[in-house]
């Protein structure tokens, strides 16, 4: 008994430096986030006089109301449409492609995976001017579709990789037996591939969802009017409109982070498990 206590004490002492380091980083992560949140409920007058990290003497949600008046709901809806459509499109075409790459036994299917892998090495910025050119020629400039199409295109490679890694682990016998029962491709996809891929689908949905929601370059280059503005771009234009109204700026940042935060809380386990599978050895 005394021995095990001593052992625990020793491990506690030897663990102390690492805990200390971990807590230092925790402070580094938390202080800016805390500052954003407390500032967002401070009145603008108090922002200039109160100590930045103190709790607001007169907490109020006026800043949030102001952000709502400045068109936030419209931008929020735009971001939601872009994210949902782009992610659904990405997952749908990627699942079809990954299933074929894994189950179609031809060199062409295998080689097509390498083409998608190449996509991971393309910096998005290097492609943005021709994308701008194409989108204007397709008469899609300043529409939500202009953001959706390239967002989906650049999300496809990583999604296909995670899906193929995942689908390879489904035993071949399952496909064989369904085929013997006379099931066609559509039925196999619907009844076998889709239900078994749920973990991979949730991982890629969260990963791509957060990426598309937060993307800045495509909306910056491919849209211009307030009607098609999405949140990251709205934050940037708020900065110009609000100038020194920092509390309202922080309220907008808090509001824009709520959907990714919700996605993360809901699907955290899937995300971590999927990252391991997708990027693993």
């Amino acid at each position: 008994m005394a021995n095990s206590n001593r052992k625990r004490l020793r491990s506690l002492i030897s663990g102390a430096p690492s805990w200390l380091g971990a807590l230092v980083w925790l402070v580094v992560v938390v202080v800016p986030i805390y500052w954003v949140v407390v500032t967002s409920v401070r009145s603008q007058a108090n922002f200039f006089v109160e100590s930045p990290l103190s709790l607001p003497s007169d907490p109020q949600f006026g800043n949030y109301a102001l952000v709502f008046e400045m068109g936030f709901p419209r931008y929020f809806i735009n971001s939601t449409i872009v994210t949902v459509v782009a992610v659904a499109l990405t997952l749908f075409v990627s699942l079809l492609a990954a299933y074929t790459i894994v189950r179609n036994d031809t060199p062409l299917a295998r080689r097509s995976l390498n083409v998608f892998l190449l996509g991971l090495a393309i910096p998005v910025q290097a492609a943005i001017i021709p994308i701008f050119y194409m989108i204007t020629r397709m008469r899609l400039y300043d529409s939500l579709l202009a953001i959706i199409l390239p967002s989906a295109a650049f999300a496809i490679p990583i999604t296909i990789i995670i899906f193929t890694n995942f689908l390879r682990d489904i035993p071949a016998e399952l496909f064989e037996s369904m085929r013997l029962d006379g099931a066609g491709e559509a039925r196999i996809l619907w009844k076998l591939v889709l239900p078994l891929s749920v973990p991979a689908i949730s991982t890629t949905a969260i990963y791509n969802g957060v990426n598309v929601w937060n993307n800045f370059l495509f909306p910056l280059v491919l849209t211009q009017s307030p009607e098609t503005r999405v949140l990251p771009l709205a934050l940037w234009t708020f900065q110009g409109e609000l100038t020194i109204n920092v509390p309202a700026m922080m309220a907008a940042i808090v509001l824009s982070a709520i959907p990714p935060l919700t996605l993360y809380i809901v699907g955290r386990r899937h995300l971590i498990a999927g990252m391991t599978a997708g990027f693993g050895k």
Partner: protein
Amino acid sequence: MTTSDTTRVRGRRRVGPSLWLIAPAALLFVTFAIVPLAGAVGLSLTDWNGLGTPAWAGFENWAAVLSDPITGQTIVLSLKVMVLSWLFQTPLSLLLGVWVAKEGRARALVAIVYFLPLLLSSAAVGLTYKNLLDPNFGLTASSALGPLNHNWLGDPRTVLVVVVAIIAWHFVPLHTLLYQAGVRQIPKVLYEAAAADGAGALRTFFSITLPQLKYTIVTSSTLMLVGSLTYFDLIFVLTAGGPGYATRILPLHMYLTGFQAADMGKASAIATVLALMGLTLSLALTKLSGFTKMQSQQTGL
């Protein structure tokens, strides 16, 4: 893993889904990712302001880009950001990843908080720090933090290091997650054997954890190095490349040349240089590490 299956299938009629099922993904991907790469080379040979029709210009843009000292300067700066980011983020995320990989309720809670910066958009992170570091109203402006009161983003001597630190704040969570996943895959027996041999914590870390994390280090470093070429939005919002040219990295230089100075031809030449750097780097890292799979650089998206 499915080789037994394929050999069994061979000999009979070929079964499996039609290749056409790849078509939708391929069409979308080729149209908006592969074609634009070729398009950038094409547009670099034209004179175009972004509105009218591109007019043939030959190698004028290339001559201009290659003789402009700013080009070399932005390339060097991009490489600096890349190396500094790697040096800053790798040890930090490795240690944090090892730390959060251990069991325990408190650690799991801390790990959740660690992840939060990754959920913010680059625009949000940029605007947060721009205001937080404001020399007049920001956090560091308060009198209690006297020595920290400095115009961090306005001083060309400090701005680069501060930007690299902010990038680390945003992206260390992703790499911590990768290392956490890597550590959890190390067989427990190795640690039991080390403990039986009386190895201490440091010895165990250097003889077991670090070598076992080889592949994770390669993956994470590839993501970091290639991804660092694309830190565009954060720096755009934070400093717009300033003060002066102090943080004008290559993608930012491309954007400002094309979309603000309305010289799309010259910007396309810069974009081509950027694409070449990205592809060369990925290829070199792949060869260097003997890694057959190219890994993602989606962090920069």
